[in-house]
């Protein structure tokens, strides 16, 4: 009988964070969930795991945004506490929408300037959409939820002329991802 690995519960799984603290992650996820909600139209930021995409981005390709995120999430919680008496992540959806709307219209005078509320919204929105629609290899778009929502087929190797016509229905047996294009191809290895 195979032995259970003793440390199973301690292995950092896909739910763990490398840069964000758990409370920062909760704040970011709550905001992302209002920017691109999970609803009857289909998967949103939570199901696609956009906060895991964000965490990976901040720990790697977008290191330069770490301080901005830290300050922006802190400011969002501060204005939430002032206005509603509790942290952003446990505010009601209506309260959260009110604050995000005020970030967009730059009507949160106590948000601070580094970053400004509209600038931070733009960064959050960009990461939400990247987490929805980038290749799953980057930590978001889990189970290709974002691509399934659109009906996008991923990086397919080819399309026929008939499939390029208006209203053509394109059928594939599965969605492709980066995993279908290993860089070390047999041809290179030769």
């Amino acid at each position, binding site marked *: 009988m195979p032995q259970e690995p003793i440390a199973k519960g301690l292995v950092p799984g896909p739910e763990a964070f490398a840069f964000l603290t758990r409370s920062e992650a909760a704040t970011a996820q709550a905001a992302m969930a209002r920017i691109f909600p999970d609803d009857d139209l289909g998967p949103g930021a939570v199901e696609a795991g956009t906060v895991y995409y964000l965490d990976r981005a901040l720990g790697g390709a977008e290191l330069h945004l770490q301080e901005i995120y830290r300050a922006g999430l802190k400011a969002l919680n501060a204005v939430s506490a002032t206005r509603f008496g509790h942290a952003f992540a446990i505010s009601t959806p209506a309260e959260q*929408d009110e604050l995000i709307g005020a970030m967009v219209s730059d009507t949160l005078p106590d948000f601070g300037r580094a970053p400004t509320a509209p600038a931070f919204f733009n960064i959050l929105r960009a990461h939400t959409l990247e987490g929805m629609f980038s290749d799953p290899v980057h930590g978001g778009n889990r189970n290709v939820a974002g691509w399934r929502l659109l009906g996008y087929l991923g*990086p397919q190797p080819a399309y026929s002329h008939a499939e390029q016509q208006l209203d*053509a229905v394109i059928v594939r047996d599965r969605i492709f991802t980066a995993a279908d294009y290993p860089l070390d191809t047999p041809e290179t290895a030769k």
Partner: protein
Amino acid sequence: MSAPAKQPDVIVVGLGPAGATAAYAMAKAGMKVLALEAGPQRTKDDYRLDELTESVFQRARLGPKFNQELQTWRRAEGEPTGPATYSLGKMNNGVGGTVVYSAWLRRYMPGDFAIRSNTIERYGEDAIPLGSAMVDWPITYDDLEPYYTAVEKMIGVSGIAGNIRGEPVKGGNPFEGYRSEDYPMPPLRMAGLSDAFRQACEAMGYHPYPVPAGINSVPHDGRPACTYCGYNAFFGCHIDAKSTVDLTFVRKALATGNLEIRTESRVLRVTTNAKGQASGVDYIDAEGTLGHLDAPIVVLAAYTFENVRLLLLSKNDKSPTGLANRHGQVGKYFTPKQLPRTLGILPGHTVNRFTGPSAQGMLIDDFLSDNFDHTGLGFIRGASLGVIQQSQPISVSKDTLPPDVPSWGRKYKEHLVKNWNSYFAIEAQPEGLMYDANFLDLDPVVRDTSGLGLPVIRITFQQYENELKIIRFVRERSKELLRQMGIEKIWTGPELTGVGSSHDLGGLRMGVDEAASVVNADLMTHEVQNLYIMSGATFPSVPGINPTLTIQAVSWRAADRLALEWSRGRAL
């Protein structure tokens, strides 16, 4: 890194379209060419079909050097300076340069080389916009025609010629100049959206033609035909169906045995000797070792920004404001292309624009250049209009929204889910006139993040009345075309799309007058007679046409003439 066995006859800085074309011409003529390329040599297996990492709209992974020295921008002298904004403008670094280009290989119109005299002749002196710096080119379409044809054959262009030796060809562009030969390949196949656009254009009396593309429509030159996967422009092609200079000019230049390439070698300045001539270049290699290389001739063939930067960084006691800058012309007349769009939703249809390369599109030149009468319009010059393929989900999700759709929340999501595969844009490529007040210099504060800490380029640029009128005029024509296609829901994107566009031209103007230009018609600097600039930076105007083919034609012509001078010098 070891020194070359023998001093080269010429050093070429940058192995993109200009440098590779010139390197080929000179190597073929027997010159020993040493090319220094700041980026690596990549092959098709290095390219990912991954929008986030590869696309120039996202992380632009293939341009590490460019990303370390992003430009700054102010609208005018005295105004605050901030980061530059980019439409298509993030460049890649590597052998081939163009590997992420959209491969639209269009020729400039014959009249584009004489915009000042043509404008005055047709509309009078008063039609020249105030503050503009409109000049004729010192070379003509006739000078370039053989080189256009030669580049098209070497690269392998797919398209329908519109004018073969003066004979109009049905389905081609009736406005184009004569060409001495047909394209080497038939056009890419027609997508449904292109066909719908073509029908609307024809119904309105316009003259649609397929984009001439540097993409194999059939197997060609040992490389396969395009599979229409949709990862083309802003990506490297993972099957080599896109024709780039690394696969064509560089390969053929290497085959002569006269080209040596040093990759990951970033040139820092051009050095000069006691006589004020170029003596070689200082550079830093992949290991971070500083070095110097001597050469009797130096060709700068980096991107527009970097060529200007290198001349300014090469200042010395004799040239305190930068090399070849005696008359203060280095950096002047810089003009990026604007790419304004008019968007619409094709009701009740899907367009499947996520298939195929962007070059699989349809264009009209009816409102380009001086192809229409401007009398009474209040502006000169114009724009091409067209539809293209290749949409990708991140770009689509970040695209310009109709004014009644918010940027977040359920209403945004509803719009995206419903319309992402039904909307498209008529893309305009307007001409940009050059202005005295639009220029490049070194930022006095901001340094690159490469570790060298050299100043980055500061862009001083704003749009003026004439160009805004072009954009507004062609937007109205675009709306009419969209309505002709049955579209009611129409909106527009910004008029200023970025100060970096990948069609960023001027800064080192070619001309006859030494006091009003930097290089002559052979692309030799007026001041330093063994220093050449091969680049879109030398262009005296910015037609509403993709510049790469003309950059190559101009560079090939100049390199041929340089090689001829070199061989004469050897014969003496």
